[in-house]
């Protein structure tokens, strides 16, 4: 019964979404305020209905209701409760339901919090959001119904894929979707602005918090996915330039560009048309990612051709929204008034360069991801575009961008002084260069990219700190004044400095991968092996039983110069329900580095093949992403950005002074 209520609620949500898509638009065209405001209650009702539907599916999974096909295929009565819940989105149907749930959540957010929005803008935003919702709800109901029943019901489920029985699945997809789908609101705002033919700095102020929220979650989601892959897949890789990963990286790149250009628009009323274009681009990449992952086109072009119903449906959605938005853009963008002039050497100019490099990287990732598919379709020739290609093309572009970052941060709006900024950054530049040269000398003949990346990382971090320091520090000022100046700096200034420090930290972690060590050996109990600066000894090797698996587990002691620094228990799990096994790497975090042990095949009673890695500073890769997201959140907390917040009333003298100096 609960399952049927869930199914019914989903259908109801579609009806509400259709009303939300059509009526407010009709209202704004007719100038009827009553009709225009219908969208709000629809958005709230739609969210409630989808939440109910999602709840019903969760309940079916929790209760192990094996009369539901989705539960049978992705659950098992012995699976721990947490994986019963996360198993809800560990499959196609459930993950699409999560997708629309988050879509409706953002729509409801606009409806509930958008009191400060101009009514026409709000009505149009909700209409576009409703249109997106309708398309995806129809997709779920017609091609991927999660509530399909099965008769007769089997006695036991087929279990959740063991690789997915991990906390990563509980956290990663929701975070990623909050980011991915969050850009839908940005898209809706852009489309609404185009429909209305009006856009100004206020529009930018309304849309920026949504963009920042989406961006923060996407950053965290990608980082979480990367860490998950790192610890489960068993060989310590964290980014593979896999099409599925690229699908999430592209919206991130476009979204990052958008977050920067919308700042220009808000502060200087410039780059309007470009900002709108980026808003369309960011969500288009989210849609493209959904298509790539959900249609099966990636696994093989032929698999897609043999069961095209889902793929074609999403492709149609993709074509409608991207094509429609771009057509709207081509038609209406010329109407938008161009504003804010600036000299090429200025913060705006630097942000244009930032946008150019980010979008070019995005294009590079796009071409690399789609090229093999297109080539196979056109000529039948199969090629592989793998990590070495992306590292070369996109890596180079991103390193170039990293060099520009501190300049952009330090340049003044409107007209900047390049020489002055270079002087201000001279210390950061010099230290970065020293690090780079020292590493080159140390590694002679080794990797080229790592020393450059490490130098750049140091330079970005110092450059960002320098920016804050320069805005706070005044010669001879007493400490109290400095403190109040630091407090007077807008949170968004702290936020952007922190986010850029995060970029530096991640880059540092990436660079440090070149300094790792690896030992592949047959480990015998009691016999030590060296990896990097550490010695690893397996004390015992035995088997253990878990709730729905059995595992071979080693107890490994990690010593440094004879003293015990950590013990970990790497394991290899076997899941009888699916006759498959997973590797549970033993990971010891030592300062910022990690010692990573993964087990291979057992060779007799007291010996096992193992890979041992020493990965210095590796945690910085993900910590950096967390710092980036925290920076974004800090910017979000800036009073200026709160929806409906009045013009800044709390201007401290120190702040206005700092502002005047900018």
């Amino acid at each position, binding site marked *: 019964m609960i399952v049927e209520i869930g199914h019914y609620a989903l259908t109801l949500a579609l009806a509400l979404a259709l009303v939300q898509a059509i009526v407010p638009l009709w209202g704004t065209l007719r100038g009827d305020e009553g009709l225009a405001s219908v969208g709000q209650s629809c958005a709230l009702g739609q969210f409630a209905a989808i939440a109910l539907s999602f709840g019903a599916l969760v309940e079916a999974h929790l209760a192990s209701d094996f009369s539901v096909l989705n539960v049978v295929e992705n659950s098992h009565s012995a699976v721990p409760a947490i994986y019963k819940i996360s198993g809800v*989105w*560990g*499959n196609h149907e459930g*993950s699409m339901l999560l997708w629309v749930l988050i879509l409706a959540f953002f729509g409801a957010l606009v409806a509930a919090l958008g009191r400060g929005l101009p009514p026409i803008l709000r009505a149009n935003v909700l209409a576009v959001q409703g249109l997106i919702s309708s398309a995806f709800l129809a997709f779920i109901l017609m091609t991927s119904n999660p509530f399909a029943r099965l008769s007769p019901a089997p006695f036991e489920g087929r279990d959740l*894929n063991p*690789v*997915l029985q991990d906390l*990563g*699945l509980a956290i*990663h*997809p929701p975070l990623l*979707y909050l980011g991915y789908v969050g850009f839908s609101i940005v898209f809706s705002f852009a489309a609404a602005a185009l429909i209305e033919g009006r856009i100004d700095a206020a529009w930018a102020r309304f849309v920026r918090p949504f963009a920042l929220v989406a961006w923060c979650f996407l950053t965290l989601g990608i980082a979480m996915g990367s860490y998950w*892959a790192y610890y*489960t*897949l*068993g*060989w310590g*890789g964290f980014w*593979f*330039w*896999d099409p*599925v*990963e690229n699908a999430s990286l592209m919206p991130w790149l476009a979204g990052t560009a958008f977050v920067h250009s919308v700042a220009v628009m808000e502060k200087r009323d410039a780059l309007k048309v470009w900002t709108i274009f980026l808003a369309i681009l960011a969500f288009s990449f989210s849609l493209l*990612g959904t298509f790539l*992952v959900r249609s099966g086109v*990636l696994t093989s072009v032929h698999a897609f051709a043999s069961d095209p119903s889902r793929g074609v449906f999403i492709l149609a959605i993709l074509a409608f929204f991207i094509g429609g938005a771009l057509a709207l853009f081509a038609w209406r963008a010329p109407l938008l008034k161009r504003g804010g*002039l600036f000299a*090429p050497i200025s913060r705006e100019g630097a942000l244009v360069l930032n946008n*150019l*490099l980010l*979008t*070019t*990287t995005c*294009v*590079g990732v796009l*071409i690399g991801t789609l*090229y093999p598919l297109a*080539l196979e379709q056109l*000529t039948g*020739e*199969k*090629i*592989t*575009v*793998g*990590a*070495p*290609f992306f590292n*070369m*093309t996109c890596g180079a*572009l991103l390193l170039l961008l990293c060099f520009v970052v501190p300049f952009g941060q330090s340049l003044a709006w409107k007209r900047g002084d390049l020489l002055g900024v270079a002087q201000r950054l001279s210390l950061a530049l010099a230290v970065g260069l020293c690090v780079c040269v020292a590493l080159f000398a140390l590694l002679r003949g080794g990797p080229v990219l790592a020393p450059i990346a490490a130098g750049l990382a140091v330079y970005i971090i110092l450059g960002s700190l320098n920016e804050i320091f320069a805005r706070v520090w005044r010669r001879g000022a007493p400490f109290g004044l400095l403190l109040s100046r630091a407090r007077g700096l807008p949170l968004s200034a702290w936020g952007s400095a922190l986010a850029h420090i995060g970029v530096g930290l991640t880059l540092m972690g990436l660079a440090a991968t070149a300094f790792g060590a690896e030992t*592949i*050996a047959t480990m015998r109990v009691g016999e030590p092996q060296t990896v990097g600066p550490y010695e690893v000894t397996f004390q015992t090797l035995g088997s253990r039983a878990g709730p729905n698996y059995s595992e071979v587990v080693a107890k490994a002691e990690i010593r440094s110069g004879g003293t015990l620094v950590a013990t970990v228990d790497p394991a290899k799990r076997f899941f009888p329900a699916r006759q*498959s*096994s*997973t590797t549970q790497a033993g990971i010891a975090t030592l300062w910022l580095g990690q010692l990573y042990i993964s087990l*291979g*095949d057992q060779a007799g009673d007291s010996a096992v*093949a193992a*890979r041992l890695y020493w990965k210095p500073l590796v945690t910085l890769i993900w910590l950096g992403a967390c710092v980036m997201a925290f920076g974004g959140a800090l910017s979000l907390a800036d009073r200026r950005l709160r929806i409906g917040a009045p013009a800044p009333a709390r201007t401290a003298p120190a702040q206005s002074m700092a502002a005047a100096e900018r």
Partner: protein
Amino acid sequence: MKRIRLALLFGLMIASSLAHAVQPDEMLRDPALEARARTLSAELRCMVCQNQSIDDSDAPLARDIRLLIRQRISQGQSNEAVRGFLVSRYGDFILLKPPFKTETLLLWTGAPLALAIGALAIWSAVRRREIAPPALTEAEEARLTAIVGEGERG
């Protein structure tokens, strides 16, 4: 979600074989030769996996190719010769970094081309603006006069 498909594949792979990426028994005694083998195998794709190098892959086919590389390297063949042999046998599909040729022209030049076009577009926009600085409209002129007048009076 982006991992799920990948993970599913890995799940399948692991299920089909419990072999593991680079085993101790495969490795060559000579560390220099072994290092060459590792570098080579990091550039080659495991043909039955999704976007994984044979160095990282658990699949039996990847193990076979790893062994083949090591055998040929120990026989004294150069990296290029081994790579050439594998390409002649499996096609360009096995290379993680696609070769530069007519079919991949757009792939390799796409991003630089986009950068050039973007830079050109920005440059022309800047020039256009420099040539024609926007004049004040009549209304703006009037407002400016009013403001200036106010300032002088105040």
